[in-house]
């Protein structure tokens, strides 16, 4: 289809997310005209990077009130860009911001909404997505019954396209922002330096009930550190109050697909397995040889995790040296 795709180029602190480039790569496959929208305060400098990854036209909406995410302001900007570009498909990343914005704008413009897509394809003018449902227990194919469609793409589902020598056309877009900021971000709190978010991590090391004590998450963090990994947790560990919910992997936590998932002292409840079974490689450490986690693990070590984990840390360090 000779179509037009509009990509929302999500940025925080003036820096575009890597996944925006993934979306641009997919946009170039699906359409022959790729537009990007940059919203923020003094963000136009990002336009060149968007051009190098496939955006032919970059529309910018800049205002100091847009420096932080303001959902109604950003929605007004995206709706205005849709009205200007008249795309067949609007593409966002399934991040906190992307999901929030998609719902507002899909409702406002009555768009067919495909969310958290693992794949997104087009067939004779109809967009089809595969997405996970029931916490990963089902993979469903969803069809958009009309265009334009609006879709959010799961981060890391598509590769970043190769850089090209290309200068995009940059156009400032005039938008009537709402006069009042009814919901206004007054503060942004960042986690401690060096902590990696489970949804952005290439490697995740998770602890479960088997680690027995919240202080043993220090041991999990130690193993995570040698892999450059994020710390994850099972629901049992979160519900016991051992670690914050933002670390939870599973149906009422995050669904993840890292390159390596290390499950330490996690037996493998159905809702946990559903949330991590699409990981490329799974390593499980558990003292119970019959634990369900071993049924999906590529490598399983049956043994006392309090001995296995320190040995693993030492061995990985040795290999890396």
């Amino acid at each position, binding site marked *: 289809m000779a179509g037009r795709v509009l990509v929302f180029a999500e940025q925080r602190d003036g820096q575009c997310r890597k996944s925006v480039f993934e979306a641009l790569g997919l946009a170039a496959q699906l359409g022959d005209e790729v537009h990007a929208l940059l919203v923020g305060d003094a963000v136009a400098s990002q336009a060149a990077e968007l051009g190098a990854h496939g955006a032919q036209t970059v529309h910018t909406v800049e205002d100091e009130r847009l420096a932080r995410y303001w959902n109604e302001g950003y929605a007004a900007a995206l709706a205005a860009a849709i009205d200007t570009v008249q795309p067949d498909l609007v593409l966002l990343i399934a991040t906190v911001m992307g999901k929030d914005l998609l719902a507002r704008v899909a409702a406002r413009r009555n768009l067919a909404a495909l969310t958290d897509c693992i794949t997104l394809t087009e067939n004779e003018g109809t967009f089809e997505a595969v997405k996970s449902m029931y*916490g990963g227990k089902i*993979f469903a194919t969803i069809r958009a019954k009309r265009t334009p469609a609006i879709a959010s793409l799961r981060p890391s589902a598509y590769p970043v396209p190769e850089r090209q020598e290309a200068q995009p056309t940059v156009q400032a877009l005039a938008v009537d922002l709402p006069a009042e900021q*009814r919901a206004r971000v007054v*503060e942004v709190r960042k986690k401690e330096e060096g902590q990696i978010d489970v949804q952005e991590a290439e490697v995740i090391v998770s602890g479960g009930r088997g680690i027995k004590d919240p202080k043993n998450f220090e041991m999990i963090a130690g193993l995570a550190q040698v892999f450059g990994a994020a710390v994850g947790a099972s629901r049992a560990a979160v519900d016991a109050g051992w670690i914050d919910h933002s670390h939870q992997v599973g149906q009422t936590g995050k669904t993840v697909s890292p390159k390596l998932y290390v499950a330490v002292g996690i037996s493998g409840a159905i809702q946990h397995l559903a949330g991590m079974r699409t990981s490329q490689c*799974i390593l499980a450490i558990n003292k119970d040889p019959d634990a369900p986690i071993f049924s999906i693990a590529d490598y399983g*070590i049956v043994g006392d995790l309090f001995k296995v984990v320190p040995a693993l840390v030492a061995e990985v360090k040795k290999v890396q040296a």
Partner: protein
Amino acid sequence: MKIVVCMKPVPSSEARINIASDGRSIDPTDVEMVANPYDEYAVEEALRIKEARGEGEVIVLTVAAEAARSEIRKCLAMGVDRGVIVQDPALLGGDGIGTARVLAAVIRELEPELVLCGKLSIDVESDVVGIALAEYLDWPHVSLATKIEWPDGKMAKVQREIEGGAEIVEVSLPAVVTAEKGLNEPRYASLKGIMAAKRKPIEAVTPSVDAGQVGAAGAGVEIVAMNPPPARGGGKKFEGEIEEVVPQVVELLKSEAKIL
């Protein structure tokens, strides 16, 4: 304060999900249904707001089939004052955007100051309803709340989870707020609550909405197929001495999985 909580019955997270013979829906046989866990956080928060103020009303609103009354009854047992259900077949079976239109039509009549929803329902995970509802009401929203404070009783100060941190958002009322896990710990219904719930009203309503925009007919998207997740067999399991096993596994991570 009058608060409406939107609740959807969903299969329990412990449930095994089987695909029905049509290949595009789930087989409901022996599937335990519960109130969507994120909606339970919303119910709990609404009750806490009412209790802290010593006045107000909490209404639970569901767009679902008749069977949903048992999940509504559980919310009433937790302390919710009354239930409202939309069960007109023409209004069911739509997508998240259509559901938001139906909810908005009911909520306009109920005129609450605050609507609380779960951040998403753990069944089809369309992840649009609460925010689309705010759009149709022309209200502001805050999604993914992990804390709600009331500095002056009118404006809400909401902490929401974002990647690698949190945002603090001030929102004027009326507003829609969606609940993330961590907002609170939902209570169990007391025996007294369960008894009281039997006498609380559940009202069926049929809101007036444009039929072309809701239900299966108005949906922008449809499920065309459901499949189990990609198969994944068990791999190599090591049960020997740790000193021998760990180097073997690390070697495999390096040579076979190409991770190190």
